[in-house]
Every structure is written in structure tokens, then in C-alpha cells.
């Protein structure tokens, strides 16, 4: 339906195509970040040996490295999955942020706008309170609880964000999101208060972490992030049209409310998956799309794909900081992204004021 509409949209004047030189630069940045993430850590692994290890895994190449079994385990079971997960989570949050900013025509919007974070937080708290001690569980209940909570949060916001029988406008949706988030957060704090022993676990989760073990979480969220990414890339032209305004979009033959639902659903799916495995990591969804906007132009045809790539690279580097800056302690990832993100956010605000 929407795809048919895409064909009817005349190419926008200010919309630029993603130049492929930019694409190459972006991919190289991502690869560099990934390599740094793999090479640097509290335990020193020689870059040569790591290179040999990586090549050894390629088909037809046999190049055993001189890493000890434990060092191999550190590389393959700790660092690689962590870098991969950082990339996926960063990509999911950044593209969701870009998409939300597009459909809500509001530069200050982040992926947690419609109650994803509050819903997931409540889900995790309830899981910790009512299913403590997950040692014996075949699957970890926390990601499932977070994912379910996030989806319920957004679904409620969407259902309740209908103004006066009319269709949902961005304003009513955002206000409904704010109300839902306050409500969910209040319920969460109430349960936390009554079960103070879960406080620390909830706290660790709220501040965000990518500390994983093995590839389980990566495999868990890969399908959701991929589906969300493909959907948003397909919608990038529609986002450009939507940024003009609902009525203008309507005159161009696009049903704004329906596009918004599709984009919100896709972005929410990716965000919920990210939140489920990494907790709440703030600011990625705001600063990455805005940087893309500042550097490469206003068109979502450029912003969405580049946000995916640079979001991944940014979070991999932020996590590198989180796990090495205060060795042997880890800094919560949400703290790192906020420390980098808050000053940047102020910059964006200043610029927005000057332009507006």
C-alpha cells in the first residue's frame, strides 16, 4: 500500500541521494570501530595473533594463532559477541531515533518517546520480583519481560493517544507517551520499593550494559533489528514526505496516520529488542541522527542508512570506553553515552534555536 504510494511521490528537490563515497567512509568507520573493539580490552591480546585468529576462521585458510585457549575464549566468547551486540543495539537505537524524529517532526524525540523504556523497565522489575533466581531457567526471562513490557507500553500509548475520536496527531501521541511513561515508571518504583532486594539488579539494567556471554543475545535480537532496519530503509522516502506535514502528505496521496503506525511499529520492534538485551542506553537515538543531519543533509534517504552504520560504530566505541576506561571496573554504558551525548544535545539545541 505504502510502497505503491512511494512511486507516486515526485523526487524532492532538497532530497539528496546517498553518495557512495560517503557510504564507503561510513562502512570504514564501522569496521575501524569494530576492530578497535576486538583488539582493545583489559587483557592484552597481540594484534597479530588476533589477525591470525580471524583469518583462521575463514574457509580454506589454516593459520593457527599462538593464543592460549583462555585467550581464544576471551576473544570469541567475550569480545566478539560484545562488539556485535553493540553494533546491533547502536544501529537499532539510532535508526529508531531517526524514524521517530521524522514521523513526529520533532528533533528532540528519542526512541523511548512512546513508552518503550518505561514499559520495558516495568517488565524487568516485575520479572525480578516474581521470578527471582533465573539460574535454573532454560531461557533468561529478563529479555522476554523487557521486550513484552516495551511492546505493551507502546501499544497502550498508541491506543490511548487518539484525540477526541479523530485520528492520532503527533501531539496527542507524544502526550499519551509522556503519560504512559510516568504511569509505568510510578508502578515500577512502587514495586521496587516493596522489594528493595531487587533494587541493584533493576539499577544495573536501567543504566544499560552490553556485558554478555557468548552469542546468545546477538542471535536473539538479530532478526528483530534486521526486520526493523529493512522496514525503515524502505520507508525512508516516506519519512521525507512526512516531514513536510500530515496534510501536505495527504495531498501527495500518503495516509500520514497509517505511515506513522508502520514506522512506529518497525522502530519500536528494533528498540524493544535492543532494550531487552542491553537495558536503557540513552542519547544514541538522538545524537547519531542529528550528527548525520548536520554533516550529510536533511533527507531521510541519507539519514536513515547512515544512522544505522554510525549508530553501530558509535555504540561499539562507547562500549569500548565503558569497559576499559576504569579497568577493572565497568562503567554503565548509559552513563558513557549520556556523558558524550548531553553536551552534544545542547549543541543541537543551540543550532535548532538559531535555525528556527
Amino acid at each position: 500500500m505504502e510502497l505503491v504510494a512511494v512511486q507516486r511521490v515526485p523526487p524532492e528537490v532538497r532530497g539528496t541521494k546517498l553518495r557512495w563515497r560517503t557510504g564507503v567512509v561510513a562502512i570504514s568507520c564501522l569496521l575501524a570501530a569494530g576492530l578497535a573493539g576486538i583488539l582493545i580490552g583489559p587483557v592484552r591480546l597481540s594484534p597479530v595473533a588476533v589477525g591470525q585468529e580471524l583469518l583462521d576462521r575463514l574457509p580454506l585458510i589454516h593459520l593457527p594463532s599462538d593464543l592460549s585457549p583462555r585467550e581464544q575464549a576471551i576473544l570469541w566468547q567475550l569480545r566478539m559477541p560484545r562488539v556485535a551486540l553493540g553494533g546491533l543495539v547502536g544501529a537499532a537505537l539510532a535508526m529508531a531515533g531517526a524514524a521517530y524524529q521524522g514521523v513526529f517532526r520533532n528533533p528532540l524525540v528519542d526512541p523511548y518517546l512512546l513508552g518503550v523504556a518505561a514499559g520495558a523497565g516495568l517488565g524487568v522489575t516485575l520479572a525480578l520480583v516474581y521470578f527471582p533466581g533465573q539460574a535454573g531457567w532454560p531461557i533468561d526471562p529478563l529479555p522476554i519481560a523487557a521486550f513484552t513490557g516495551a511492546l505493551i507500553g507502546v501499544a497502550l500509548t498508541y491506543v490511548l493517544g487518539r484525540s477526541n475520536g479523530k485520528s492520532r496527531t503527533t501531539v496527542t501521541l507524544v502526550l499519551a507517551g509522556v503519560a504512559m511513561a510516568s504511569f509505568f515508571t510510578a508502578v515500577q518504583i512502587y514495586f521496587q520499593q516493596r522489594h528493595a532486594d531487587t533494587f541493584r539488579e533493576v539499577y544495573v539494567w536501567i543504566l544499560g550494559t552490553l556485558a554478555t556471554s557468548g552469542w546468545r543475545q546477538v542471535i536473539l535480537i538479530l532478526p528483530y533489528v534486521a526486520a526493523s532496519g529493512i522496514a525503515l530503509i524502505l520507508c525512508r522516502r516516506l519519512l521525507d514526505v512526512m516531514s513536510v506535514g500530515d496534510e501536505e502528505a495527504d495531498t501527495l496521496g500518503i495516509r500520514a496516520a497509517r505511515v506513522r503506525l508502520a514506522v512506529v511499529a518497525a522502530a519500536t520492534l528494533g528498540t524493544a529488542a535492543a532494550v531487552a538485551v542491553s537495558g536503557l542506553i540513552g542519547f544514541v537515538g538522538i545524537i547519531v541522527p542529528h550528527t548525520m543531519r548536520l554533516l550529510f543533509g536533511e533527507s531521510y534517504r541519507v539519514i536513515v542508512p547512515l544512522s544505522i552504520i554510525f549508530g553501530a560504530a558509535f555504540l561499539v566505541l562507547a562500549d569500548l570506553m565503558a569497559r576499559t576506561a576504569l579497568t577493572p571496573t565497568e562503567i554503565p554504558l548509559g552513563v558513557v553515552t549520556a556523558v558524550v551525548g548531553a553536551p552534544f544535545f545542547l549543541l543541537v539545541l543551540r543550532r535548532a534555536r538559531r535555525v528556527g
Partner: protein
Amino acid sequence: MTPTPYRFWWARRKFLASVLGALTLVGTACGTGRDGTPSTSTQTGVFPVTVKAANGDVRIDQRPERIVSLSPTGTEMLFAVGAKDQVVAVDESSDYPPEVPKTDLSGLQPNVEAIAKFNPDLVITSDDPNNLVKSLDALDIPVMRQPPARTLDDTYQQITQLGVATGHSTEAANLVADMKSRIERLVKLAPKFSEPPTYYHELDATGYTVTSRTFIGEIYRLVGLKNIADAATGTGSEYPQLAAEFVLKADPDLIFLADTKCCGQSAKTVAKRPGWKEITAVKTGAVVELDDSMASRWGPRVTDFLDVVVQALAKLESAKS
């Protein structure tokens, strides 16, 4: 610290040691740490062993020689069962006994690679943040999770497990027996009241406390004290936050401060709180300043904690008569 019961207990330790003859009772001392007898134990236990920790069955192939402890309580237990020479690193919060090999490893925000750097052959932890246990499993490093005890039996069980895991099962058994007999003696020693005195155990200055259904509450219950926070039992949390008004109204006979180090509270600061001058405990000087760590860990020093409680009761009794 605790003249009469302490010496009595110590004497009996020596007696016990002589009876057991060949077995040297290692520097356990139920956490007094003053009898730092070096571990001369020759019995190493039979390995491999499998112990049942909170994270499931843990198989330990050889006597661990490079233990990393991320649990302050676990550290105290390890030293008390005589495994001190096998411990290479403890986390930043492990501060007892003083000679522990303290590092800046964190038990709250642990980084697995940083732990792996010590090349440990056994890791002890009480919590499992950041997927710690699974990550150590991935590196084939045996890890025992010993969560906060809910009862004294949990404590005994954890000590026994650590003894088996480190090749000190006899010392662990002796330590548990000593703790049990010391507790029994302290309970007998404690003065009896026709009406049980009430107490308030303060975790922080904002009213967080414990009910009788917690590990700490169990210790007080042993000597027949009545917890003012039990009115909050059944509200969901065994660590409720009491309103200051409620504490004033409950008018406890004893106040135990477990927030002297963390939050700088003392009998003086308590007396200065608005209205608290009228509380019986404050009026009679029955505000007991505890060592935070002693009153929050479920390790061998729990007997010292009970000792302090019994002394406070003795003081209360002499003040009444």
C-alpha cells in the same frame, strides 16, 4: 572487644584443638582475626570435588591455588577456613581480615576480562551482575555464587561448601561447630526479660530497616528481641522503609545503627534528629553503633555481631535493675 564471653570461647577453642590433636585449627577465630595462625594444614581434601552452589553444580578438578573473591563475605569465609594462601585477589569491598589481597576489582560492576587477568582457578561471588557467571563459564573458570544468606543455616552451608571447594573441609566443619557453640553460649548468656525489649535496626538514615524474616532479624530473634519493623511484615518487602513518625511511636528500647560508616550516623546524630530525644533508647543511652560491614555480612563474624547485641542487652538489664 567482648571480655567475658570472648575469653571463655577462646579457651574452649584451645581445648577443642588439643582434643582434636593432629588437626591444627587454622586462623578462623570466628572472624576475630587476631589469632593469625598460619595455615599449616596438610590435609588437602580429595579432588576433583563437586559443590552445589547457587549457580548449580560446580566441579573443581584440583585444589584451587588462585582464588579470586568478589564477595566480601566469601573473602571472610575463605580466610576463616584457612584458605588464605590460595586467595590471589579480592574485590574492592573486601576489607576483612585486614591482610586480604585487596585489588580494585569490582563485585558490583565486574569486568570478566579483568578478572581473567588474574588467571583464577576459582571465583567466588555473591551476585551475578553483567552476566558474570555465564561469562566465566565461557572461559572455563569455575565460579561459585553464594548469595546473601537468609538464615544461619545458609551461612553454615556456604562455609562448608567453601571448605570442600578449597580443600579445607575439616577446618570448615570445625568453624561451623565453633560458631554454633558460641552462638548457643551467647544465647544462654543473654539476659532474659519478662517483656521482650523492642529494637530498631537502622540500615540508613532514611528509615530503611529489616524485619525479623531477614538474616539480621534472625540474629536478634535468637536473643528474644522484638523488632518494631515487624508491623511492616507482609507489605511485600522484608527491607521496609519506616516513616520517622512510626519509629517515634514504636518507641524502641534499643537502636542499632548499621549506618555508622556508610552514612556517618552515631548516637549523637540520632539524638539530634527532631523528636528522637524522646525515644526510650536515646534517653537511656541504648543506641548501639555497629560496624556496618560486620552487621551486613553473613560470614563468620556474625557471632561477633551477636556478641555486641548480647552486651547491649546486658547493659540494658543492668540499667533497669
